[in-house]
């Protein structure tokens, strides 16, 4: 019965529409970013926008193939997919091509190359979904928790060896998935507190910070003296915080690489070096800021056209959008992303199968993380972390990986009623 169904039966066309819109926006902006007088055609294969056109076409082909496959295929093959990508991640450390300081690429010949870390994202999602949807698995059970954490951490370790800090951090976003499946909210609070303490410890005198934290805890304890458990938790939290505060500076200066530290210093305003480490972000801010409300118009961005912003077709593609389309364009793009994210959550929540739901949250988390980190970086809210803007940034591996990520979900979704009878 199901074999007679059209592959597009029950497919969520709204998501596909957003997907296509974002791909098109990306293609035009790549054209604007690398535009020069000699190569005017949008499909000139010697240029990045020409290649991106090919990537988009091939992504559509991949999407079609995914929609033609059986939905059960993904659940069943999640472990082998995971293993293969992990092997590729190990392989890339051996035979990989070093581009921009990261040994992240496997050359395929013909100028094309593959970035296994991009594909690790969806295979990790798949395996995580498969594991967590298993019977008798509860995230509050320590063994289940550590297995799930292991599934996420393993690719992170392999990727940090490249060392591609940006792609590594992407996997952290899967905390949302774990949270949705029952992880204690304290984890989220803990992470938020850690980040706050980290920033504060770098910005202010650590003794003031110690005093502040102690005072705050003291007040909270004082007003909740009857709640014994709360008091205990707070005291433990205080001790951990103090240890953390004193550990931050040594860790910061010994573990992080010089350029990473410099980027963080720059974003926190500890140092200002607009010619050196702060150049990219400053130029990027100038590009976006100079777009004003309606932007300078297509192909009229001086910051992008005259290459003041580096990496404008990949990590800093949002500069072109901000400069040439202004706040209006930025609003549209961010709106599309937010709409997509909420749509993905809606899709995930309407699944009968936990596997599909968990996978759906994985998709949302990963896209969310990419969008936020990438755009925040271009407007100077985050240190420079080199990760692409989904569907828009130039690059085949990234586009294919996001296409696969989204379309597996769409396939699962189109089949959401498939097994109920």
């Amino acid at each position, binding site marked *: 019965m199901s074999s007679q169904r059209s592959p597009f039966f029950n497919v969520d066309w709204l998501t596909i529409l957003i997907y296509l819109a974002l791909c098109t926006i990306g293609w035009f902006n790549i054209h604007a970013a690398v535009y020069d007088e000699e190569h005017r055609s949008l499909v000139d294969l010697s240029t990045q926008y020409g290649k991106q056109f090919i990537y988009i076409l091939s992504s559509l082909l991949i999407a079609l193939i995914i929609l033609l496959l059986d939905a059960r295929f993904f659940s069943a093959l999640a472990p082998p997919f995971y293993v293969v990508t992990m092997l590729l991640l190990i392989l890339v450390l051996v035979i990989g091509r070093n581009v921009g300081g990261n040994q992240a690429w496997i050359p395929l010949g013909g100028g094309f190359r593959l970035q296994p870390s991009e594909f690790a994202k969806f295979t990790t999602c798949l395996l995580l979904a498969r594991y967590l949807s298993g019977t008798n698995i509860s995230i509050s059970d320590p063994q289940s928790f550590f297995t799930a954490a292991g599934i996420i951490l393993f690719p992170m370790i392999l990727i940090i060896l490249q060392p591609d800090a940006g792609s590594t951090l992407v996997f952290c976003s899967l905390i949302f998935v774990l949270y949705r499946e029952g992880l204690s909210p304290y984890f989220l609070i803990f992470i938020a507190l850690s980040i706050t303490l980290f920033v504060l410890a770098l910005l202010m005198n650590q003794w003031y910070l110690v005093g502040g934290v102690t005072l705050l805890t003291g007040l909270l304890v004082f007003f909740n003296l009857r709640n014994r458990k709360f008091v205990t938790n707070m005291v433990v939290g205080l001790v951990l915080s103090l240890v953390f505060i004193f550990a931050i500076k040594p860790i910061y200066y010994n573990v992080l690489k010089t350029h990473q530290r410099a980027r963080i210093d720059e974003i926190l305003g500890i140092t200002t070096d607009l010619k050196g480490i702060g150049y990219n972000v400053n130029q990027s801010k100038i590009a976006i*800021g100079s777009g004003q409300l309606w932007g300078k118009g297509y192909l009229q961005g001086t*910051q992008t056209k005259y290459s003041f912003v580096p990496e404008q077709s990949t990590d800093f593609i949002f500069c072109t959008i901000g400069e040439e389309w202004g*706040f209006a364009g930025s609003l549209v793009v961010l709106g599309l992303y937010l709409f997509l994210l909420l749509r993905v*959550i809606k899709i995930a929540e309407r699944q009968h199968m936990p596997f599909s739901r968990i996978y759906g949250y994985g998709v*949302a988390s990963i896209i969310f993380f990419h969008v936020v980190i990438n755009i925040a970086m271009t407007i100077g809210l985050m240190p420079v972390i080199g990760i692409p803007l989904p569907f828009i940034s130039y690059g085949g591996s990234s586009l294919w990986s996001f296409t696969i990520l989204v379309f597996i979900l769409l396939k699962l979704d189109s089949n959401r009623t498939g097994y109920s009878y």
Partner: protein
Amino acid sequence: MNSFFERRYIIAGIFITIVLVLLARLFYIQIVDDRYLLYAEKNVIRKTILYPARGPILDRNGKVLVQNEPVYDIMVVPKQVLPFDTAEFCSLIGIDKEGFDKRFTKAKKHSPYLASIFEKQLSVEFYRTLQERLSDFPGFFGQLRSVRTYPDSSAAQFLGFIGEANDKDIKRSNGYYRLGDYVGISGVEKAYESTLRGQRGVQNQMVDSRNVAKGRYANGAFDTVAVAGERLISSLDSRIQRLGEKLMQNKVGSIVAIEPSTGEILCFVSSPTYDPNLLVGRQRGNNVAKLYKDPYKPSFIRPIGAYYPPGSSFKPLSALIALEKGIITPQTTFFCNGGYQAGGHFVRCTHHHGNTNLTLAIAGSCNAYFDNVFNKLINSNGAKQTSATYTDWKARVNQFGFGVKLDIDMPNEGRGYVPPALRYDNTYGVNHWRANTIISLAIGQGELLATPLQLANIECTIANHGYYYKPHLIKAIGDKNVIKDEFTKRNYVGIDAQYFEPVIDGMQSVVEYGTGHGSKIPGIVMCGKTGTAQNPHGKNHSLFVAFAPRDNPKIAIAVVVENSGDGGTWAAPIASFIVEKYLRDTITRRSSGIYPEYYMNANLLPSLGNKPKPKLAKPDSLKQQQGQPATDTTKKIELKSAGRKKTKKANNPYIAYQSKRRENE
């Protein structure tokens, strides 16, 4: 199974919140904060200032006195400079590392984004060898400028010079001038700055991040073209200017010649002078320093800044006022027994002139005659009215432009000095001074001080029989012939025309057979008057004022030669050569046997050796220029003549113009 369902809202809430934070930030930098638009323009637009050619200055016959020569300035935009081989760059433009650092720091201090001048005024040939290499050094580029060049090397003080605008100029111009712009600093260059400078243009060029030009911004919609400065036709006659400078070389002094029928200044020599070309080009700084250190102060504009007692050259004016007031008639005679007894002091005359009338008195420069006239004049309302009568006399002298500014079209003009009655009140006490107290004024001594320009202007007035035109340096701007209405207005001095003839008779006699007879020009009737200003440190200052020809005068002249002797020996011959050159374009043989070369070769520079400093120094232009308290010997003379032994408080009648060194030189 689907527990924790409500957590979807928390996750969605986190997503929405963070996206809103991003949007808020975008709203701020894109819409609220306008700085980024400015930064983007600064990034991409390179404003090239198009400097207009500064207007040339010609002499009255169309000969070029100043014109422009192209040079290149090396500019730097510190923000665009990338690391490079400093040593190579330094050797390329010929500076050392230290100089490089100094220049670069200065440029950075000015602005990291705007172009500053890095090295100035490279010649066209030098720049050509450099041009191709310059593209290896992003942030540096050459900018075409022009500098002044003086084909004649003359009239330095008249033309003045230009220099970089200093902070004060920039402030005063309300931002018109910018660091590195040139602005007239003295002379005509300063007085006619707004005419000469023209109008700057600007070209907006777009550049990429490597500073490579990418075409014009907005298709040149915001570009403006440079409009060249207008051509100035000065009133100077370069023939006599050059002759005057030659005659005055190795002497301290001035020559001012004016065309009486227009007030146009024909000759404006300030000696010692300098070659104006020295103040142009890369060596300018050194040369300026040398110029200011020169003990003879060549940068001092003596014709309008140096003060001299007019001495006997004042006598015609003295006579004119007495004639107008009816004190004397041309026939009035006084007896000269070789001097004049003023109270207890005897004012000597050079000769025993015997019975002297006006013409003879001027011809022979009889002190006794003029002392008698002055005495009679000041006492004409009774001795008790001395102060009031004197004040009236002073006002009449001022009418001639003596003791007041003539408002010549050039900065830093001195006003000279005619003492007010108050000055004598302070010195001797109210009503305790009489005609004989101030008798030295009668013969142009005493506290009287005039600039050479004022002396020449008095001659114009006499030549015109009672009026003068405001002396000016510029005849025409571009095609405009009348540049200011005030230059065509007659300034009457309040002396009836009929009184001039007898005085002019006397002045003619001066040259025919009087104190200036050695300077008689064959075939030209020149009317003049010698003057000798006494100088206790050395030889007297020699003065001569004249106009010629007597009928329909074409030129009025004042010559001052410091430390040279009598008026007839130096100043008069020099004046006669200039007058003849101007009227006849050649210098004929003189019956007295004088010839220009003798005067050109004479060295009359005062020795600046270690002479004991005199207690009362003679006002000469060197002292004035140094700004020393210019105590004047004339006081001493006058004191003696008055026969009073009263100590006077140091009271400086004139504030000598001091040419200050500009801070940015």
